[in-house]
């Protein structure tokens, strides 16, 4: 009955040589994750000084999307719940952050602590919405869950139009964001600051997620995904676990949405359409479902692929008549074709492919040594 449940990532629990569990602890998980995150943070700072502003902005966008895809991959990949509505959760976070920032600005409040406060409010707001959806979702499976979350994805942007007194309809709200602190110097590039802010928030969120995955909760998530009956026999409260997974995933989606709003300095319903929800799902599956690195690849693809395909089409010199037909459409066609080919050639996504490559290289290295 796996078909009525969402995805199972490729088996990775057992080492194929000895059948020993791979998950051998070496030192504290937290410390190890902390080290990785710190290294990534330092690297990000270094990179932010070497690349030009637009790349900084793109990386910041990757970070914001990574936040959302990481949460989605935990929900769908590890807990087996399919969500087509994460774009709506991002919208919830984005609008909450926008309303907070506007409220602060209107009252003339300034200070470096306001932005974290808005982001926190965005998380709280999205957790509330996520809990409601999650309670409903815990009763549903497979396509029925897909149907409800799809409806959520359509409803939330529509609410922004219905209650245009608060959300200003299609035009959306602007998000006042303060310039970089003066201590960084008067000419500190704004895009670099954006990368720092989103990068820091995302790394923190991912650190927490990584620890959650390795914790007891992570194991119950997987147990529920693999076999609900067995999980129940083992004393796991299935529905509660599913709601928890949904809430966690909603929190990161909300943070991702809030970060996007801060990056764009605006929110509007058109940016959080059903298309976004579908693209997020494509991203986590293409990246490699159930793994945070896969979610990272997915986020990278979301930002880089349209850009790459656009540059590719720009290199062609065409007559105006042909160019008008291809313009915009060719990148989409390439994007669609890539999705299909990757899914057929590498069902484990990019990360699955890389792991396979990595294992092959390691195996060859061992063969040579012995």
């Amino acid at each position, binding site marked *: 009955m796996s078909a009525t449940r969402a995805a199972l990532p490729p088996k990775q629990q057992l080492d194929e040589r000895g059948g020993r569990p791979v998950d051998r602890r070496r030192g504290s998980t937290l410390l190890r994750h902390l080290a990785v995150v710190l290294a990534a943070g330092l690297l990000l700072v270094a990179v932010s000084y070497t690349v030009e502003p637009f790349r900084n902005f793109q990386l910041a966008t990757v970070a914001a999307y990574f936040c959302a895809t990481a949460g989605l991959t935990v929900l769908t990949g590890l807990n087996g719940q399919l969500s087509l509505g994460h774009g709506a959760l991002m919208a919830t976070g984005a609008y909450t952050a926008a309303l907070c920032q506007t409220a602060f600005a209107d009252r003339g409040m300034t200070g470096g602590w306001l932005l974290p406060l808005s982001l926190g409010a965005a998380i709280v707001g999205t957790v509330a919405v996520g809990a409601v959806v999650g309670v409903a979702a815990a009763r549903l499976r497979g396509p029925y869950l897909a149907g409800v979350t799809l*409806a959520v994805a359509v409803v939330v942007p529509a609410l922004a139009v219905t209650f245009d007194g608060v959300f200003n309809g299609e035009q959306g709200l602007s998000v006042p964001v303060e310039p970089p602190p003066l201590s960084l110097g008067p000419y500190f590039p704004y895009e670099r600051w954006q990368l720092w802010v989103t990068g820091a928030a995302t790394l923190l969120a991912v650190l927490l997620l990584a620890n959650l995955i390795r914790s007891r909760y992570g194991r119950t998530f997987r147990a529920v995904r693999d076999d609900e009956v067995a999980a129940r026999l083992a004393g796991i409260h299935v529905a509660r676990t599913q709601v928890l997974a949904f809430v966690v995933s909603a929190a990161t989606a909300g943070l991702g949405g809030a970060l996007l709003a801060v990056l764009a300095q605006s929110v509007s319903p058109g940016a959080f359409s059903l298309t976004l929800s579908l693209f997020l799902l494509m991203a986590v599956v293409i990246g490699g479902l159930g793994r945070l690195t896969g979610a990272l690849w997915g986020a990278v693809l979301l930002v880089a692929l349209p850009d790459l395909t656009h540059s590719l089409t720009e290199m062609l010199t065409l007559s105006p008549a042909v160019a008008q037909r291809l313009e915009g459409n060719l990148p989409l066609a390439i994007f669609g074709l890539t999705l299909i080919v990757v899914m057929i050639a590498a069902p484990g996504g990019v990360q699955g492919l890389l792991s396979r490559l990595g294992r092959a290289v390691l195996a060859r290295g061992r063969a040579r040594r012995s």
Partner: protein
Amino acid sequence: MDRFVFLTVDGLSRGAVYAAFALALVLIWRAARVVNFAQGAMAVAAAYVAYTVSAATGSYWLGFVVAIVAGLLLGALVDRVVMRHVDHASPLNPVIVALGLVLLIQAVLGMVYGSEFRPAEAPFSRSALTVGGVAVLSPYDLFVFATIGVVVSGLAWMFARTPVGLRMRAAAFAPEVSRLLGVNVGGMLTFGWALASGVGALAAMLVLPTELGLHPHAMDLVFVSAFTAAVVGGLDSPPGAVVGGLVVGLVLSYVSGYAGSDLTPLAVLVLLLAVLLVRPGGLFAPVAARRV
């Protein structure tokens, strides 16, 4: 009262089309356990073929037939060339491939036909006949009801009474056993895809004259409504798809008529939750719907 009658009839005629499209989704779900997100794009592609044929020959009916044939072929093609090669171990993979197909098909249609709306002709008058001062059904509405009635009863007959239908059901529910019993499971799967895509193309031909016109994205919104309809009815149940389609059509019509068209998405969500929280497998699911 007049308005109520008007909204009811209007809702039913749109609901009938959602029903046909939902039926196509149900067919593929039953045959392959895949929610075919590319259904809308595939149907639009078939409709574009019909448009080309009708424009070249001047015959609506030739285009109509060609659309259905194109739909059948496209369905078989998608199964043989793409879906057959997708790893179905994870049910998400086919969904992602279907989404990739949507992008690809819509982009190709955009390249070939441009992004302008093309007129979608209706074969019969869409002017409503009035009964007692109230505009009721148009000849076109009657045509839609009749066509969908024929399709639904035809499919019901096929699944219940013909060997092909039996083999399809067997292949879908117990592929291994069926294979042992000599059923060509792969062939049945392709047939299921073709059939579903053909019904989808038919639904597109019926719904497009009531929409903005022919456009690569013309079926996006219809797909969302039809998917909702299929879920409300229960994805395993063809009668569920029909009832679900009519219910969704009515809800959309009443809400936009009485409350305002911006509230329709919310109404759809409420409908879904109301149905699914009571019956998590849709209205027409068997009672023991929740299998674990």
